[in-house]
């Protein structure tokens, strides 16, 4: 009984920890499928987390907060798209800049608005919405159906993403754009439009993932509270072979390592907690080594699109 209860807590924590990773990872999957790699997910997430927290702090409205997080990260997404797609800047450098800006701006504004005046305090968060009947299934019920709405949203997002990618005309074009953009352009489809769309979509989801951290998982903003989750999401995309379903499974794996280290810390094992904390990162490391070599990486990923002949 005690074991079952522990397992249930672990699984619940896994889903909670996986959600921001999955949100950011699915968005990045689309972006990379279209040929744009963004290592700046961390930056988006911090901006999203801060925008959401601030909005709840002043308005006490959670949905407005999500909207704010989306709007602000989409603005950054447009800027990123402009530099990488229109100006054809190096995508890795632009992503690194985004990380630095995200960390800097969110930290700076946080100090100005909250830290100095000690006004910062816990805000309202998304609460669990147990789904009647379903939540009473042993083990799975509390795990899957006693979560907040953002966790639920990933249940819809993941299959929807897979359907769009593999079963629609848009998905077909998206997959082709990351592999052979000139083929796409030669059929009269504008590669640039597809890439803008994918990049902005990725920004939006990463923004929501960030918001989740500050107003669902925690109840406040902390400087650099993403703690590398953006990079883990990036690793998930490669580990999940650019397939939304696998990316989601990879997200659950990484989520479980976060959950496990929390459980182990709470369980007061003899292992120093610092070692437990590195667990997710070690697993990321191992995952990248495993996925290396059998990669389905889009061929044109990271390469700015130049029209031929002009």
């Amino acid at each position: 009984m005690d074991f079952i209860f522990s397992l249930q807590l672990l699984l619940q924590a896994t889903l909670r920890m996986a959600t921001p990773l999955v949100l950011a990872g699915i968005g990045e999957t689309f972006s990379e499928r279209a040929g744009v790699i963004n290592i700046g997910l961390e930056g988006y997430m911090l901006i999203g987390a801060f925008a959401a927290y601030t909005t709840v702090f002043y308005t006490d409205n959670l949905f407005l907060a999500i909207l704010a997080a989306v709007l602000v990260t989409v603005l950054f997404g447009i800027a990123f798209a402009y530099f990488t797609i229109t100006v054809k800047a190096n995508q890795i450098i632009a992503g690194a800049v985004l990380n630095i800006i995200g960390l800097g701006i969110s930290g700076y504004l946080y100090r100005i608005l909250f830290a100095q005046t000690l006004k910062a305090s816990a805000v309202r968060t998304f609460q669990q919405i147990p789904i009647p009947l379903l939540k009473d299934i042993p083990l799975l019920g509390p795990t899957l159906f006693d979560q907040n709405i953002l966790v639920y949203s990933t249940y819809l997002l993941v299959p929807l993403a897979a359907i769009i990618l593999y079963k629609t005309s848009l998905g077909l074009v998206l997959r082709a754009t990351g592999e052979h953009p000139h083929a796409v352009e030669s059929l009269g489809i504008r590669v640039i439009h597809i890439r803008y769309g994918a990049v902005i979509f990725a920004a939006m989801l990463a923004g929501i993932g960030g918001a989740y951290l500050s107003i669902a998982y925690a109840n406040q903003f902390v400087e650099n509270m993403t703690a590398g989750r953006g990079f883990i999401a990036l690793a998930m995309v490669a580990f999940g072979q650019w397939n939304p379903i696998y990316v989601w499974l990879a997200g659950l794996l990484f989520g479980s390592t976060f959950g496990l280290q929390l459980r182990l810390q709470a369980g007061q094992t003899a292992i120093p907690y610092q070692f437990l904390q590195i667990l997710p990162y070690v697993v990321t490391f191992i995952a990248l080594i495993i996925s290396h070599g059998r990669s389905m990486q889009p061929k044109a990923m990271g390469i700015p699109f130049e029209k031929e002949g002009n």
Partner: protein
Amino acid sequence: MEMDKRLQLINISKTFPGGVQANKDVSLDVKRGEIHCLLGENGAGKSTLMSILYGEYHPDSGEIWLNGEKISIPTPKIAIEHGVGMVHQHFMLVPTLSVAENIIMGMKPLASFLWDMKEIEKDIARFAVERGMKINPSALISSLSVGEQQRVEIIKALYRGVDLLILDEPTAVLTPQETHDLFETLHKLAEQDFSIILITHKMNEVMEVADRVSVLRDGRVIGTLPIANVTPAILARMMVGRDVSFNLEKSERAYGEPVLRVQALNLIGDKNRQILKDIALEVCSGEIVGIAGVDGNGQNQLALCITGLMKPTSGHILFDRKEMAGKSPLEFLKTGVGHIPEDRHAMGLVMEDSVADNFMLQRYNDKFFKKLGFLNMTAIMEYAKKLVKFFDVRTNSVKTAAGNLSGGNQQKIIVGREIDRNPKLLVAVQPTRGLDIGATEYIHKQLLQQREKGAALLLISTELEEILALSDRILVMFGGRIVGETSAGRANVDKIGLLMAGMQAEKE
């Protein structure tokens, strides 16, 4: 306008920024059910003209009439809507997607669902068969041969309702057999009233497939003639503007001592794939040995092994009886091995660097070009000017970036550089790929001259004509082995063709 004319181009002119006039008052018409060849050397303006027709470029002046209607074609999308399709030289296919996915891409609104892939695949298969082509719509592009991929490109265009199909140098990547199949397909399409424009610089293709031919030179149409009225000699004169000798003058001469001896050479690549198997060959001084074969049967790796750029897994490479296997490329250079590499962009030249710098690639360390440990720029420039003149490289200055020169002139830089070192062995891989008649003729003459001077030449080419014209002996490679040998005198095209296809080797 007559009804049987599908397309009429009237006085099309196009000047590029920078002043190069690619097309001058070009007028052309294409009938229904006609295979119309557009023949011309590189830079004659064929591709520009077709890019205008396909909406990729915009003409400065002139009119495009299609089916009796004057139209303008601002983008490829509009071209397709008007029934004009293009099969590019570099395929516009996504290797990771299926045939059917490549074909329908972009045909339906982006928001539409593709639940019915099986139906779509059936429809594409039926569509292809009706037009005399066979294809497996669910196969991945990456699993198809080059010839099959080209077929997908053709179906992709036709499936969009195209009735005027432009093919840009379609045979450059094909085996003789695949070329034959392609021409058969084109004939079938022409019988079904499709019009086909085929861009090429190969006269034998024109003679084989065309109904009419238009020859372009320096951006102008020199003439349009029915195929019955032309001979290769007439076409060559129209293309080049002077008489061209097809029969290279090759003196009979006795070979000297073997310069290169390869014995039991094996190369094992990734995943334990045997790339070269038990290769044995000899090249004597004053001899040209040609290696024929379809691209990808180990010829390139063989050339890389013989020039020291790749290390064989086992076997001997004897150069003047000296073992070279395992030595560095520099040692190969020093022993007198010259190399005209297959891909002049990737291996032969540094495109961003000047002509002079490209001449220096192997010789920067020669005493002659150094002064107090620094490069002696005066000596280098003078040397470069001398070579440019001697090898007839057309460039404004030796400081021009190699990438700004035409393909023929780029190749002349490489050939000049290698020949000027007086190599004892010259390994020439696809030395005239993509070059026009004039440049090809020139390079061939240079190679023969090396033979006269007593160099040993190993010529690797997928162009059978080239092998036949130059070689003293011909070896055929298939599947990493040498599967046959014939002397040039007895050279029998059919026999070589069969060997190239692996007919007498163990597998199909």
